[in-house]
């Protein structure tokens, strides 16, 4: 019955002291607003990071050797260096044991590491095409000539570009510079080209060895990869899908680029920038005129226009030149200037020039430095620090549905576990010796690219003949050995062998911590030699980041609310002192001490809920409105954190309740001391004469 009266008095007091109420209120509003918006934001980021991590690489739990030197961190260390997590001997054993746990849905074997591939520069590329054309009996002689002209043209461009610049570049020694000049001079002469066809092997070799290196273009592709059972991986990471090319066939060694990486790191730089500009203009409604970012990309394209004109042969240059002059209605004769002018796009010209690029220019340039179907020479450093190389066929690109644009989910390219073992240095000395022996026996001691390519592309083609040619007694063993180093592997080789870590999927991800404990206990009991960590731990600094973000945010919110709480407390104390007589009167009339407590509590509660409520509502509105539109990621860092080009926010009802609950707790805490003071006010205060 008295509650209503208490509320009335409390509310009236709140309005009576408007200034103080407003000051305290706005801090509370700010705190609540920050809590709702901030947490929705951080939850959006961490949820995105969690999903793009767990559903692209880590699963719910990761297991790895308990003897690991470093802690598992699938994304490597903060400085980009790899971690040494040791290895486990038999995937089958571990997997079988873990699958006995009813919470475990799947176990996928893995190894993550870094590798590089040097696909060769544009001259290498042209020379390779030319070599193939020479070897192709059906090749069109006209095509051959055109290709030769293109290379000659390119060589001249290289010469022109380097004229007087050798010293500037400063990579070569003086002697090398002299030799390079002589070489360039030699290949520029007609004599070099006259007898080209009859001696194409040595001429191509010369160009590849002496001239191609003069393109000082860092063409190295550096990437992270996961070696796994590709079929199992595809099945257990349900978001997995092939974008270009095809899935690595079962039991076959092969490689898939992540499509995000392929598009961003392998694609022709100018094409990629054009794609990005187009996307930004469409998705984020940016304009070139209004966005520094887009202007910078246009500028970069203009500066790197050589990447187009160097890749075009004389015929193509001619064709494109004519069309460009038309498009730009220009009389410019210099193709380089034309290209530069073409690439200097603005909002009006962008769309037509974008289409022009893909229609008229793209067919003549190397759009992707590595093509689907290519056999890649991958290099990596093994655990022991030596460098290894593996030739592996690129079957296609993949991505994870709904994380197409997440750099986090796009971090790893994929290969089979057998290749990983080799690349990572798990080919035993014994096996290496065996391989050598097979090479010798099979006459494969010169494993050129073509030979390897044959092995990969036609795994059942050429080999049976050679096998049948071998002695019968060695037949079985030899075919087995060949499989090891060849393009295929057996399920046993995959499953019984070494792996570095594994993703464990749970039926109920909420049971994660319990299952981690279970696995640790089982491993200890049965000597499995494994340890289990949550996806966050496995993600290393990435996993910690969401935790850090939350912590920092909570500190800010905490400070705002602590401030508000202290101010509430202070003002209540002052109110208690100011209203001694009023409180004394109430007490004299017959109000119990708890009535006075409630009076103060309701007052704070009223302020907290009113202003906290306003903050929550404002915050919710912002989350709902901005969240639906999405916050555009500006720049790579934001794209990384947002797990895509936009961050969508969701309003979590639990969060709203939590914030409101926190408001009540603040009200309770801030009330205690002043209310206690007020309760101590004697009814005698009522009798004091008022001044």
């Amino acid at each position, binding site marked *: *019955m*008295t509650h209503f*009266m208490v509320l*009335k*008095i409390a509310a*009236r*007091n709140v309005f*009576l002291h408007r200034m103080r109420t407003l000051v305290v209120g706005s801090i509370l509003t700010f705190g609540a607003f920050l809590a709702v918006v901030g947490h929705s934001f951080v939850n959006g980021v961490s949820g995105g990071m969690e999903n793009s991590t767990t559903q692209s690489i880590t699963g719910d739990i990761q297991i790895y050797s308990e003897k690991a030197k470093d802690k598992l961190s699938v994304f490597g260390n903060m400085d980009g260096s790899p971690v040494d997590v040791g290895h486990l001997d038999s995937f089958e054993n571990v997997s079988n044991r873990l699958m006995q746990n009813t919470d475990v849905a799947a176990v996928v074997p893995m190894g993550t590491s870094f590798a590089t591939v040097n696909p060769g520069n544009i001259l290498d590329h042209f020379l390779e095409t030319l070599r193939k054309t020479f070897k192709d009996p059906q090749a069109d002689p006209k095509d051959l000539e055109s290709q030769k002209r293109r290379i000659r043209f390119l060589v001249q461009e290289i010469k022109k570009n380097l004229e007087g610049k050798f010293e500037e570049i400063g990579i070569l020694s003086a002697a090398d510079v002299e030799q390079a000049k002589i070489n360039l001079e030699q290949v520029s002469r007609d004599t070099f080209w006259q007898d080209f066809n009859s001696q194409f092997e040595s001429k191509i070799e010369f160009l590849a060895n002496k001239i191609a290196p003069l393109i000082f273009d860092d063409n190295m592709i550096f990437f992270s990869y996961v070696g796994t059972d590709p079929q199992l991986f595809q099945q257990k990471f349900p978001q997995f899908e092939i974008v270009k090319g095809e899935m690595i066939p079962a039991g076959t060694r092969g490689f898939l680029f992540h499509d995000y990486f392929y598009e961003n790191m392998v694609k022709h730089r100018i094409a990629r920038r054009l794609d990005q500009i187009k996307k930004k203009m469409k998705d984020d409604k940016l304009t070139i005129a209004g966005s520094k970012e887009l202007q910078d990309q246009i500028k970069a394209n203009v500066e790197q226009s050589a990447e187009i004109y160097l890749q075009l042969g004389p015929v193509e240059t001619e064709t494109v030149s004519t069309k460009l002059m038309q498009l730009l209605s220009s009389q410019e004769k210099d193709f380089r200037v034309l290209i530069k002018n073409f690439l200097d796009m603005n909002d009006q010209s962008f769309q037509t020039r974008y289409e022009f690029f893909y229609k008229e220019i793209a067919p003549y340039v190397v759009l992707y430095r590595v093509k689907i179907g290519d056999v890649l020479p991958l290099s990596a450093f093994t655990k022991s620090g030596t460098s290894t190389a593996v030739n592996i066929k690129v079957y296609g690109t993949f991505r994870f549905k709904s994380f197409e644009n997440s750099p986090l989910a796009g971090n790893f390219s994929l290969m089979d576990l057998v290749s990983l073992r080799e690349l990572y240095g798990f080919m035993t000395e014994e096996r290496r010796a065996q391989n050598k022996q097979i090479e010798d026996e099979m006459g494969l001691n010169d494993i050129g690219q073509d030979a390897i390519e044959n092995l990969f592309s036609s795994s059942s083609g050429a080999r049976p003949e050679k096998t049948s040619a071998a002695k019968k007694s060695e037949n079985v063993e030899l075919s087995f050995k060949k499989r090891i180093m060849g393009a295929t592997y057996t399920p046993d080789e995959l499953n019984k062998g070494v792996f570095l870590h594994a993703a464990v999927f749970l039926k109920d991800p909420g049971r994660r911590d319990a299952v981690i404990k279970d696995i640790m206990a089982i491993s200890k009991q049965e000597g499995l030699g494994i340890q289990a960590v949550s996806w966050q731990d496995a993600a290393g600094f990435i996993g910690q980041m969401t935790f850090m973000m939350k912590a920092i945010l909570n500190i800010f919110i905490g400070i705002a609310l602590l401030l508000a709480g202290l101010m509430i407390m202070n003002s209540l104390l002052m109110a208690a002192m100011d209203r001694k*007589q*009023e409180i004394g*009167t*109430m*007490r*004299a*009339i*017959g*109000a*119990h*001490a708890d*009535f006075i407590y409630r009076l103060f509590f309701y007052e704070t509660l009223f302020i907290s809920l009113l202003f906290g409520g306003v903050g929550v509502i404002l915050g919710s509105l912002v989350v709902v409105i901005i969240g639906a539109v999405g916050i555009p990621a500006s720049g790579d860092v934001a794209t990384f954190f947002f797990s895509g080009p936009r961050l969508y926010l969701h309003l979590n009802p639990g969060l709203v309740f939590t914030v409101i609950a926190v408001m009540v707790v603040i009200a309770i805490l801030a009330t205690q001391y002043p209310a206690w003071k007020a309760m101590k006010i*004697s*009814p*005698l205060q*009522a*009798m004091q*004469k*008022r001044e």
Partner: protein
Amino acid sequence: MQPIHLENVKKNYQLDKVQVSALKGINLTIEAGEFTVIAGPSGSGKTTILNLIGCVDTASEGKVVVGGKETGGLTEKQLTDLRLHTIGFIFQSFNLIPVLNVFDNVEFPLLLQNKLSPQDRRDRVAKFIDRVGLTQYAHHRPSELSGGQRQRVAIARALVTKPQIVLADEPTANLDSVTGQTIIDLMKEINAAENTTFLFSTHDHSIMNQARRIVRLQDGRIQDKA
């Protein structure tokens, strides 16, 4: 049963190192329905006596019986309840709750008592506001009223619970003499009609003389009994 009975009541105050004896052995009994004034010069102990009877302070020695209850043995809670249900206070400086209007102020003790139904409560409040002639001001805040009007609100508030005893410490001290007189008249009138026991203090002679019984206080002692 007498509503108020004091036996050899002493009250000492500790002021720094000096002990002040405000009351030096008071014996006083007040019968139901009496209209009594405690008279005496400033500092004679009027307020102290009323505070003890009003259960807002405790005696240093002696026995204070209010509404049939010996207050010495009561807890703080019990004393509060005794105040709520037995005593009505009229204060020298009116002591209305500033954020509540006249109606709410008068209703306040009834809400604390929580004995009446909402309807009965509203009727009772309206009746007492009418009784003090402020019906048309029922929705005004105290700050919008004159001193006399405020004290009449205070009287309505003190009487609305129909207490056994009404205590008033110099209720007219803050009012001009004409207004003071009307307040005294109102109190007398209610005393006559409701048979409520009134005990109030004053040092104003013209008011003193209107009481049926005067208790004269001097230096903490009752001088004579009328």
